[in-house]
Every structure is written in structure tokens, then in C-alpha cells.
């Protein structure tokens, strides 16, 4: 399962600052795309009927994990969006 509690096998050759510089604009852009698409859906006819769609609830849960998580964010989002194991 998620490995956030253990150090990576291969520590990143780049520092946290270098990685932030590398990725910030992509991260910003991905969030903006999500925000704008959500607004677009809400502006369209029939917005009430999809307000309770489980896919939007999934996205809300994913945003919580992004905002509050520490490590393992991707694994925890994928697990939250999965059918539970039998």
C-alpha cells in the first residue's frame, strides 16, 4: 500500500526548492482547469441534476486529500476512487 511512511529508495537528486520551481506552474494550471470545468458544469442547464453525481463527490474527496494529506496523496486518491476489494 502507500509508502509515505518510508523514505524513498532513490532520494530525489533535486531539492524541494528545485522541484517546486519545476512543477509550480503545472500544479497551478491543473487546479485552475478543475475549477473552471466545475464552474462550467454548474452554469449549464441541468446543473441541479448532476450536483449529487458521485463523480463530483469523488473530486471533492480528492481535493480534501490534496489539501490535508502528507505523502501518498496520489495513492490515497486512487484508493478512495476505487471499488473496495472483495
Amino acid at each position, binding site marked *: 500500500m502507500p509508502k509515505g511512511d518510508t523514505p524513498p*529508495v532513490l532520494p530525489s537528486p533535486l531539492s524541494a526548492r528545485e522541484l517546486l520551481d519545476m512543477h509550480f506552474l503545472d500544479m497551478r494550471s491543473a487546479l485552475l482547469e478543475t475549477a473552471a470545468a466545475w464552474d462550467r458544469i454548474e452554469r449549464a442547464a441541468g446543473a441541479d441534476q448532476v450536483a449529487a453525481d458521485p463523480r463530483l463527490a469523488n473530486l471533492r474527496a480528492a481535493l480534501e486529500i490534496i489539501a490535508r494529506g502528507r505523502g501518498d496523496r*496520489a495513492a490515497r486518491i486512487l484508493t478512495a476512487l476505487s471499488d473496495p476489494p*472483495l
Partner: protein
Amino acid sequence: MKVIEPHIHMIARTTQDYERMARMHTVACCEPAFWAGYDRTSARAFHDYFTHITKFEPTRAAQYQIQHYAWICINPKEADDLALAREVIAFIPEFLDKPTVLGIGEIGLNRNTKNEMTVFQEQVELALARNELIWIHTPHLKDKLRGTRMMIDYLKGRGGVDPERVCFDHAEEHTLGMIRDAGFWAAMTIYPITKNSPGRVVDALEIWGIDRMLVDASGDWGPSDPGTLHDAIFEMRRRGHPEARIETVFYNNPCYFLGQCPKFKPAPLLPREQAWSGAARTRDSA
């Protein structure tokens, strides 16, 4: 640096893609049998498909100095019709004997149904009886976690399956742990939207190490691009990883896994213990 593409559906790609791959130093590619984008209407259609990927594609690839290999099976998306599946399984051995076929694949699950599981199990038996390598397709999106767990539990419970000879493809952050803990090889598929991205693939290599890890680009009939494999190479470079480590992931590792089939010709540049030393976590310390 030479590159091997472990999973791509060249039947759906143009000759120009072979040309691009050759220019990007791809020396070999592997084509697992899969769904065509529509359900085939008879067993004969599968026979034609298997003939295409064992005859025409190796010839087309050779024009670009690329070795083309194939995996043969009835794929999970068309495995729900048991009678049809068994009709196809009956002539699979004929193709397993072809000089470019590496084993049984990509078998697996799609919607995790009972019939899919039956067809998976019957093809595992065929592979074991003939000592073939196995390439496994794990389901997409919300079905992936459950389906991956079902197949690992089955193979472990059955016993007699050497995990070194089995690769689980389309692994993501939430399935890598269970695949690796069970000792299987894991492949990560870069595929826009539904699977993985170059950035996340390199994250997984950093977190888990490079042992028993493969990366593929899965070009097929959907929005995809063989060049995304090379995007992952570039991502690993720009994140500062040494060239020898990158070469192991994209060339040596495919040689270590696929080379267990004597028909696979490319040879690794160094023994795997040496290639993985310091860059892999052994299973006991995971």
C-alpha cells in the same frame, strides 16, 4: 541509449510511428494481444489478428531495425463469452510456437466478472503447462484495485507460479505495493487521462526503486503516443537521475524480464544485481 517498448499495440499505429520510435532509439517492441476497439464476431477473427501480430508487424518493424515481439491470448474485454473464449484458447498453442511470441498475454480482468476470472485461470494453466511467461492486464479506473487483488490472491493461492515470470501491467500508486510485495514484476503504462503520467512514473521509481519495474507507453487506437515512453526518459533526466539508472529502467529491465524467454534477442548491458545495487529495495526490507 537503446530503448525497449514492453507494451504497445502497433496494429493500431501507422508506419510513421515505427519511424519515430526508431529515431528515438527504440530497438524492440512487444505487442500483447488485446481488444480491437470493437468485439470480434468469431474465433476466426482472433486467428486473423494473431496472424497479423506474428507475421505482418515483425516485417513492418524490421524495416526500421526494430524487433517486434508478441504475446498471445484471449483478452479480458472479450472473455465474458466462455464458449468463444474456449474456441480461441484451443488454437493459441499454434501461435505460442511462433518465433517472435514471448508468452501468454495480456490476460487479466476488465470488469472483474466470474467469466473473466475463469478465462484468466484457464490461460494461466495453459501458460504453466507450457512454461510460458505471463503478461497481465489490470483493469482500469475504479475496477483496478479489486481486480489486481483478485488476480494476485488467485496466483498466490494456486501455488506453483514463479512471480519472476509474471508481470502485472498498468500498475499505479495504489496497486504497486501489493504487486511488488508478492514478488511479481510491475509495469507502469503512460497513457494520457486514464492511466499514468511521466511524472508519476518517475515518482514511483524513486519511492519503490527500479528493481522488477518496467515502463511502457501503450500506444493503441485511443488517444496515446509511443513518444510518451521517451517523455518519461526525459522526465527522469530532468529530475537529475544518472544515465546508467535510466538505461536500466528503459533497456536492461525489459531484457531481464523478457529475456527469460529464449526467443527474446536483446541482451542486457550488465548483470541485474549490479544494475539494481543501491537503486532497489529488496523485498524483505520493503
